[in-house]
């Protein structure tokens, strides 16, 4: 029904709420409700014993009673090495906890569709780094899912919005303010191509920060009148938080809200007006607007050149956000996109477009059969890269296993994506076919630069950026470097992520070594090739030019657990556990809603 390979779930694993969608056989993406009948599931986990958890609304109810056994906002800790929470004698990493949420989503989807589900596309904030993306992939793997890819949330939202507007040319600005993260992405729709022009954000800014301001305000009022602070104890704090959350929602519809506080036998009712709430969070709104302006600058665009302003994430429901954007752009944002569901819908579409070429929705017409679909999972062979070596430049040096050398940078070529002819949609009035266009191209871009550690002329370590931020994917970079010392027999390439000039300022994602070389004279050339695919798999190839010896390693994203099943070395944090053990443990845990 969903093409060979079964259903591909599109999963929006959110900080506060998660949603899951699939594309039905008619080509329409639809949200799959959970076992409780709700379109979204709170990303909250309650551990009630060592083998049992509750995920969702019921878990929220336990926040006040047993705050030490309830986990919320775990997405904010994804990718953090060494971070683990202990419940009933077991330590759980953020990806293991996220896996419990994903399992609930998966099992509820299977119950609804009546099919076993294996494949999924999971979305992440555009500003997530490699470690965070890797942890998300691991979470899916632990939950028993085959994660086909992770895509950026704004991209998924743009797909959900733009898919039926393909054929024209539009510029979309996706403003994604979720519970815990914030992204802004500018995308261009050109024919059947969706291209990311620029992206920026803050992985630690979200609706939660508005909640925290309100909690602090109310608590401080209580302290002033009664001298004690309900934030000092976990249960009273959770109660206060829930009440503030409710008040925040009220303030989106009404001009004021009353927040009752009850602590150590003392009671107070704190009245908060919408104006007061906006005053205390004005700087957060300002941050969002400035980031939006920055992204427009990066894309080289003006506000007036944005044709559609999309709001994604529940926090965009706050009137202050909409008003601020309206002031900045001179027009209101798009109103017909569900901010809570569009990401999951877009993810499911992306999954089908990329990984289900034989989905029924692609071939509904009575016209002659379209050409055989091309397997979009394998890019066509790339042309020879254009290199512009600059040997006379004051070159950066490469820091390698037993020394360093001077090196030369060369510019990255681009790989043209595959194209094909789109089939026409069918025309059965009883079963309207949305008929996905077969030639949709989704071109994402890097949100963090990738680089390499080298030694300069003074033998000081430096980071050289090889693939800048905002580079469209897929992308390939060829660089020529040289050995710094005489008689080097091995070479190590340290792949970095992030902005910075020195080792301390960036993350070292991976180290790729080429060993067993004959003694190499100083100054002999060595090539380093970075290939970054549309599925965000980075391949690093190191070639000794004169001998031809080379090593190529595909770096799959992984979190801190290591032991990726592909056998490839993990990218990201150091191994602090075992993926296999985490999967086994996950299987033994009962998950209910």
């Amino acid at each position: 029904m969903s093409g060979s390979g079964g259903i591909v779930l599109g999963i929006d694993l959110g900080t506060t709420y998660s949603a899951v969608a699939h594309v039905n056989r008619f080509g329409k993406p639809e949200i799959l409700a959970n076992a409780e009948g709700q379109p979204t599931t709170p990303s909250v986990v309650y551990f009630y014993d060592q083998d049992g958890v509750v995920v969702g609304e019921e878990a929220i109810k336990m926040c006040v009673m047993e705050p030490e056994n309830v986990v919320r906002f775990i997405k904010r800790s994804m990718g953090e090495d060494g971070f683990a929470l202990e419940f009933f004698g077991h330590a759980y990493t953020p990806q293991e906890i996220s896996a419990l949420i994903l399992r609930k989503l998966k099992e509820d989807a299977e119950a609804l569709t009546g099919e076993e589900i294996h494949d999924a596309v999971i979305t992440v904030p555009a500003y997530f780094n490699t470690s965070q993306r890797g942890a998300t992939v691991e979470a899916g793997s632990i939950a028993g899912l085959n994660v086909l890819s992770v895509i950026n949330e704004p991209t998924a939202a743009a797909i959900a919005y733009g898919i039926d507007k393909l054929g024209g040319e539009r510029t979309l600005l996706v403003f994604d303010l979720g519970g815990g993260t914030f992204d802004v992405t500018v995308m261009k729709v050109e024919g059947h191509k969706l291209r990311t022009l620029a992206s920026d954000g803050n992985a630690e800014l979200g609706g939660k920060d508005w909640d925290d301001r309100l909690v602090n305000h109310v608590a401080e009022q209580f302290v002033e009148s009664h001298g004690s602070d309900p934030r000092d104890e976990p249960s009273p704090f959770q109660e206060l938080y829930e009440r503030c959350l409710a008040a925040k929602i009220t303030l989106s519809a009404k001009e004021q809200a009353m927040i009752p506080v009850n602590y150590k036998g003392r009671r107070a009712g704190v009245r908060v007006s919408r104006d007061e709430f906006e005053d205390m969070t004005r700087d957060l709104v300002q941050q969002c607007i400035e980031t939006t302006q920055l992204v427009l600058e990066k894309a080289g665009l003006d506000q007036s050149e944005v044709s559609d302003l999309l709001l994604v994430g529940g926090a965009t429901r706050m009137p202050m956000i909409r008003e601020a954007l309206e002031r900045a752009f001179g027009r209101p944002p798009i109103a017909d996109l569900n901010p809570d569901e569009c990401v999951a819908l877009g993810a499911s579409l992306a999954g089908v477009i990329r990984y289900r070429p034989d989905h029924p929705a692609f071939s509904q017409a009575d016209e002659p059969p379209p050409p055989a679909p091309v397997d979009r999972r394998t890019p066509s062979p790339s042309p020879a890269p254009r290199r512009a070596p600059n040997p006379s430049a004051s070159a950066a040096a490469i820091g390698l296993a037993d020394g360093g050398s001077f090196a030369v940078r060369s510019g990255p070529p681009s790989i043209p994506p595959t194209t094909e002819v789109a089939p026409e949609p069918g025309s059965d009035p009883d079963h309207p076919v949305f008929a996905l266009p077969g030639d949709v191209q989704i071109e994402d871009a890097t949100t963090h630069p990738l680089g390499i550690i080298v030694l300069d002329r003074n033998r000081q370590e430096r980071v050289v950026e090889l693939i800048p931020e905002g580079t469209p994917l897929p992308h390939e970079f060829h660089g020529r470097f040289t050995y710094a010392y005489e008689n080097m027999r091995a070479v190590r390439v340290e792949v970095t992520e992030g902005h910075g000039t020195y080792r301390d300022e960036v993350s070292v994602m991976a180290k790729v070594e080429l060993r067993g070389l004959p003694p190499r004279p100083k100054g002999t050339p060595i090539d380093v090739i970075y290939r970054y695919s549309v599925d965000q798999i980075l391949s690093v190839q190191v070639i000794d030019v004169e001998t031809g010896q080379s090593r190529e390693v595909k770096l799959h994203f992984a979190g801190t657990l290591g032991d990726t099943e592909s056998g490839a070395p993990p990218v990201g944090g150091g191994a602090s556990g075992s993926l296999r053990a985490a999967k086994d443990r996950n299987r033994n845990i009962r998950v209910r809603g």
Partner: protein
Amino acid sequence: MTTRNLDKAAEFCLDVEADHLFGYLKIDEDSSSEDLVEAIKARRKWAQAQQNNPKYKREAKKFISAYEALIQVASDPQQHLEHQQKRREDKNLPSLQMAIDAILSGGANPSLEQLSFLEGKADELNIARETLYQILKESGRSISNPPSPQRSHSGDSGSIDHEATTADRPPLITSSSIIQRPPSPMASTGRSRTPSLGTPVGPPATPGPSTRSTSTASGPPRRHSADATAPPVRRVNAPNTFSNQPTQPPVVDAPTSGRSKGLIEPAGQHHFEEIIHGRPRTLTGLKVRFMGALPLDAQISSDVEWITVEPSAIKPLDTQPEVTPSGKKVRIIPFSATLNPSQMPDKQATGRVTVFNSAGDHATFRFDVTRTFNWIGLLKGGLIALVTVVLLAGFAFLVNEILTPRHGKILVIRLDPSAEVVMLDNQVIGSGSIVRHSSPLAGDRKLTVVQPNFQTVEKMIRIRPQEEEEVVVELNLSSKLDYTPGPDEKRANIAPAATKQAESAIAPCLTDLEAPLRGEVHLNVLKNGTVGSIRFKGDFPEIVSTCATRRLAALRFDSLPTGDYAQLIAKVQHP
């Protein structure tokens, strides 16, 4: 336990502004490793419940991230405490060194006052005094009357004609102990406490000597004299003569009749006739001799409340071996008895101290004591005291009115930016951006301000008597701050807190800025923690870069434990 875990625990303590884990967890520093582990586990539960609380989330997350390291560190709390102390010292040593260099710039040995100031500075910087003395020693300076930091107690115990049992030498007390400084902060770290000078340590305070007479045949009363080579001892906290009672076990009925079986006997004098003029007197060097072949337990007690003994029980190992003239090996038990006349029922009384062993044998000492009230002495003393007081008062008045220099009320010195050392007439009076000096000597005084990277300022200021004076000193940069690391110099890591420190220093320069600003400031930090170079990346208005340069140049980061320099980037974002 690895250094990595100790460092991680140290970074956590720094983040939460705690001296050590005991302080953070609010448990006693003497707690066992198990107690510390339990406290950490309990705190983890709290942290898990509070990791989304805006008031505690930062602390809770840091705790959870550091948890494994903290558990490891808890297996050896002493090592953690020592590590914390060392880090505090390392961080503050450059400041202490600067103070030493400023005060002793002429290469002179420190005077008592200078030493006192340096000791206070060391205390303020949480540096052990031993470290200060070590630094002074290594710099080739000697200290006259070096204090013994290990122990001190007031006075000495009185002794009688036979050997004193006071094992300790009289303490070397400096003027600082007379001032009765509060206990050094060092006293709160770890189990090995370094008592401050002037705080009694060891056995309970024993009363000082008083005039006495004794009926022994040893001649006129002898006062115990201090070691002739030691400096004069001044008594601190003279005990209250009538109420100072060391704690004692209850009086035990000791057998006073019956003959000794010959296994235990007094060694030396055993009958004392004492005349006491009011103050308690301690007789030390009392001895009994064990004659038996087997070492036995013994108890010592008195039959009256006004005689107390120390110790009250003896184990065989506490005895001292002795060989009699006939070659027999015996064991000696020394003890002391304190006679407190204020508790005597009458002017004259007799009391006995008995030592009896577990074989039932005993030896008895008798004390016939007469309590007198020395009227003539009292009158003499009173008259002398009265005359002395009158003379002193007159002298003091004269000195105060004519000879004592006048003082100002307070001197406030405001520095821009802050200063490492501020001196008045070459005496260090403080550091920072505001220095307050109470009761400064009036007149024309020389003010000296020292700050690395800035030109030293020396100027004369006038302090008027009884007036408040305020001086503003603006420092000028002395160097171009253009340090570039050499090819052989090694780059070291620097703690993330340093970046925050730099960003905090820049923040006040942005308050009045209206236009938005985004950029970076790149710093090279030298080994001693001072700033070597500053580079601005971005469109910084001159007013901001000038302000930031001054504030950054005045910063002092932690000195680099390894490497020759470090680099950090402070991000600037306004608003």
